[in-house]
């Protein structure tokens, strides 16, 4: 392509017969008249490459720093001991780890049926109408609402009005609302990828609308839906702001037993608590907890990417 830029072009000498129409022609003439155009082009591509490497370097530096700092703290003891505010070097993360597991389990239980149900309704049932446009617009806007605002909603609705206090249940319901737009939008995309021939064939065989959805469309879009669900849950697992806003404890000694009443903490909250302290030993403990959290998150991400990749390879409509 750039070879063209070096050859003398007839456009260099503007002929009276061809009026310079439009900026593209002007642009081409300039390129041909500049011997350094090729060099500038090359330099620009290097600049862009440098940008990309800077981004990747930031990612690697960040991960390397955290893992090299926190790896030493991770052990079976660290995973199974209660945290300590007096001896940070001896404490573990069991209470917040269990809290996080409960939270994610309940969040998945609430958000998957509601999210996939909404997506099925919007894609397969709702006729194109003003109501559908409104719901769709509403979901797109909810996806951009800061998570701490959901926390304030959870505080007013679940903690106060429903009287759930600072329980795991209140936290899970709040996180459900946070990730619901993500689940709906990704499930909709997966449903849209199923070709309409599948639907037509099913209806032609006399299936009802729900039979078509349940036996044909959902199985066909399952990998796509799962990918979205995994990514949304990994977002919920790392989310701390809405939990802080509902008043969840950043430090508890014992894992919650009663999901409707007991105070709980979650891994990101414990990390927040330890990072906020000034002693070095707390920071090491925080790094250890981050290593545990990131390992799980990166594992979930890898699973989602793998699912998407295999799906893209296997299914050729």
């Amino acid at each position, binding site marked *: 392509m750039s070879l063209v830029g070096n050859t003398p072009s007839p456009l260099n000498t503007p002929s009276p017969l061809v009026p310079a129409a439009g900026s593209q022609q002007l642009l081409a003439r300039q390129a041909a008249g500049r011997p350094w155009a090729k060099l500038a082009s090359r330099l620009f591509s290097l600049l862009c490459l440098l940008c990309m490497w800077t981004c990747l370097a930031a990612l690697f530096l960040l991960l390397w720093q955290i893992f090299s700092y926190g790896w030493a703290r991770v052990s079976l003891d660290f995973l199974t001991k209660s945290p300590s505010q007096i001896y940070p070097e001896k404490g573990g993360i069991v209470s917040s780890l269990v809290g996080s597991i409960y939270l994610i389990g309940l969040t998945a239980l609430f958000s998957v049926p509601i999210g996939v149900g909404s997506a099925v309704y919007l894609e397969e049932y709702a006729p194109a109408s003003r109501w559908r446009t409104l719901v769709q617009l509403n979901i797109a806007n909810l996806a951009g609402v800061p998570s701490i605002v959901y926390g304030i909603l959870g505080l007013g609705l679940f903690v106060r009005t429903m009287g759930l206090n600072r329980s795991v249940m209140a936290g899970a319901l709040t996180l459900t609302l946070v990730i619901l737009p993500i689940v*709906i939008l990704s499930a909709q995309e997966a449903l849209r990828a199923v070709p309409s021939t599948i639907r037509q064939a099913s209806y032609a065989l006399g299936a009802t609308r729900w039979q078509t959805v349940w036996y044909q469309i959902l199985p066909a879009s399952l990998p796509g839906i799962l990918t979205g669900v995994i990514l949304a849950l990994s977002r919920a697992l790392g989310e701390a702001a809405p939990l802080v806003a509902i008043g969840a404890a950043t430090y508890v000694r014992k894992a919650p037993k009663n999901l409707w009443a007991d105070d709980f903490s979650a891994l990101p909250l414990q990390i927040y608590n330890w990072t906020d302290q000034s002693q070095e030993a707390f920071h090491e403990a925080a790094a250890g907890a981050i290593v545990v959290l990131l390992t799980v998150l990166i594992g979930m991400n890898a699973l989602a990417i793998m699912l998407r990749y295999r799906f893209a390879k296997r299914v050729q409509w």
Partner: protein
Amino acid sequence: MASLPSSPTTAKGTLSPGGFRWLEAAIHGLLVACAVVSVITTIGIVLVLLSQSIPFFRQVAPLEFLTGTKWAPLFEPQHFGILPLFCGTFLVAGGAAMFAIPLGLGTAIYLSEYAAPATRDIVKPLLEILAGIPSVVFGYVAVVFVSPLVRQVFPQADLFNALNACIVVGIMILPMIISLSEDVLRSVPRSLREGAYALGATKLDVTLRVIVPAALSGIMASFILAITRAVGETMAVSLAAGAEAKLTLNPLTSVQTMTAYIVEVSQGDIPAGSLEHRTIFAVGLSLFVSTLLLNVCAQWILSRMREKYE
């Protein structure tokens, strides 16, 4: 979508037993209920924010709230001017954008115009990993790694300062800028590129004078969405930027953002229902309105862009 089966009722009537019709209706109702949850969420957010903000604004004049230059609700004498929190929020978001926009746009241009498909297949998942790192981890990085570095370069900087937050929030919003801008750059029709090449333009001319201008509105939308994300960013900012509500543009001092203030009050023992506690709903309302405006703006730009090329 649901366009074709407008008449499956006839098939259902003849082929399936009557019991199905009842089941179908029940399932339809259930699915509608699922979709209604998201509508109720929006109504809930507005109601909860207003229910506590209205009593707050009965005690504090809205004009004083919006134009006051001092924010000190927790100390005597109390001041309820939100401008310092706004200033902190946009100082951090703007600073983050100054790091992230050139880097992100450069990377997006490289990925869409220059990179081999294999490179793209490796880099994009890596950037997704970066996008998946939780905010509190960035807060940790800001406190433990970035802050000492900043203080080495600028010895006069506060321990917690806006620059720390700008750097980590900038890294956080990078993946968003890259993936959204790359999408719009790639959606520019091939014919535009080929037309320019045919006229003898170099790759630099094509990229900077044809593709980027053509995709400009989409790129702008991606910037706005990224800034929205930075405005709503909470944990990293509240760990890194400090907790002093100040009306300043100096990135080396400690500032407080709207989100960090909500965190500060949520963690304290301020009794619910008091004027001090109601401030978080008023601040939350301001945050909600600012992000909503930015979002609507970005979506409007994107939908205009889609119309242009479809």
